[in-house]
């Protein structure tokens, strides 16, 4: 009995060591590991041992298509992206183009800041054509600009970008938009192209990695629907909330970056619970109640106003 157990422990040890070394080889070309990869290496065996045996093969296949971008790798891709952009669209120049990013209304310190800031410096783009907030440009300036380049780490569901464009639709009308991201999901491209067609503007994607949703790949030992069910069960076992299991908007992404892990990534890889110490933890801060109250009050006021106007018209 003891011999069997020790054989099983040895098998698991060999298997996990192989997964760790394969992943690190794929993600890192340097001898030195960054903090996130050190953490991955340290945590993997414990984390993997909590996955039931029937689901371990599903998780292994998912890790084979998981993308991790260290700081150096991400910055190298920012340089490659600019080469791709300028080679594919040679008509872009300082007179007709601006470089900006998706600015969130609430938070100043979004990760898009990092990529935009590094992109312009690595590629030595004139600061005159790099713009923190597109709304700062006046009408006259905007009329001269035909191309807007949006820099970001990833485009997973496309929803943030659609919301950003919707809230600034006047600024984007009759312009060509170039979405420059390291990682993009196929679904996001389709969704954004539909949105662009309906709203009369052009959208182009420049990226390094394009991926399908995790459970549309034919990589599993089981049928992909069974693999998905097994994955849902293990996520529940690890106390991952329902809305986090397949990532935000059910994006089913598999990616992490040196500065954070997008919330579109499958929950078990990033969401910390009492039973899950994830491999690529997402930095998460809980917003105080007044933060959402402010938004709720605004929505309530708009709704009251519309109701009042509606009553008057009746």
């Amino acid at each position, binding site marked *: 009995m003891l011999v069997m157990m020790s054989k099983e422990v040895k098998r698991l040890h060999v298997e996990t060591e192989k997964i760790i070394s394969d992943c690190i080889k794929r993600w890192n070309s340097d001898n030195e590991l960054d903090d996130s990869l050190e953490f991955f290496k340290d945590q993997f065996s414990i984390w993997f041992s909590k996955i039931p045996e029937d689901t371990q093969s599903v998780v292994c296949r998912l890790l084979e298509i998981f993308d991790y971008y*260290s*700081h*150096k790798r991400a910055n190298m891709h920012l340089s490659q992206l600019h080469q791709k952009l300028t080679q594919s669209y040679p008509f872009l120049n300082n007179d007709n183009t601006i470089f900006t990013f998706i600015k969130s209304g609430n938070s100043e*310190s979004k990760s898009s800041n990092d990529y935009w800031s*590094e992109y312009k410096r*690595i590629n030595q783009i004139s600061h005159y054509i790099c713009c923190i907030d597109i709304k700062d440009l006046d009408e006259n300036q905007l009329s001269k600009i035909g191309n807007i380049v949006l820099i970001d780490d990833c485009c997973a569901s496309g929803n943030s970008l659609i919301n950003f464009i919707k809230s600034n639709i006047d600024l984007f009308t009759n312009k060509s938009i170039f979405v420059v991201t390291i990682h993009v999901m196929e679904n996001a491209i389709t969704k954004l192209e539909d949105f662009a067609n309906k709203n009369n503007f052009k959208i182009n994607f420049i990226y390094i990695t394009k991926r399908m949703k995790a459970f549309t790949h034919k990589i599993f030992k089981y049928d992909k629907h069974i693999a998905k069910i097994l994955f849902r069960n293990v996520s529940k076992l690890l106390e991952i909330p329902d809305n986090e299991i397949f990532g935000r908007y059910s994006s089913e992404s598999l990616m992490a970056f040196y500065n954070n892990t997008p919330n579109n990534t499958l929950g078990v890889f990033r969401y910390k619970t009492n039973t899950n110490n994830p491999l690529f*933890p997402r930095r*998460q*801060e809980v917003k105080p109640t007044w933060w959402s109250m402010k938004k709720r009050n605004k929505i309530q006021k708009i709704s009251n106003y519309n109701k009042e106007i509606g009553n008057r018209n009746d």
Partner: protein
Amino acid sequence: MTEYRILLALQYFKEYRESYSISSLMQKLGLTLKQVDSLIDQMIDKKLLKYEDYLLIITEKGRRIIIANNMQYYKIDNNHQNNKIFIDKALSLDSPYVPNRFSKKYNA
């Protein structure tokens, strides 16, 4: 004021090395993106920072400035080396903060 910010930023790049990020520098120094961006540009112009192998690193001149200002032992973030990966949620304002290994020290 700018000199002081430059010193803090230099220390940040020395401490964080390849794990630096613009947004984390913004938070540490309490500056906006525009301010941090211009600060980094100034530091590159003064040859205190440079890009090497796609990463921003502190130059020899930058290191000498840290030493000349007696900042070599100053830590921007005391927890950085110990808690490289921060994953815990922030404590609410009314929860008491218990330092690491407090009970061990208290019992001793």
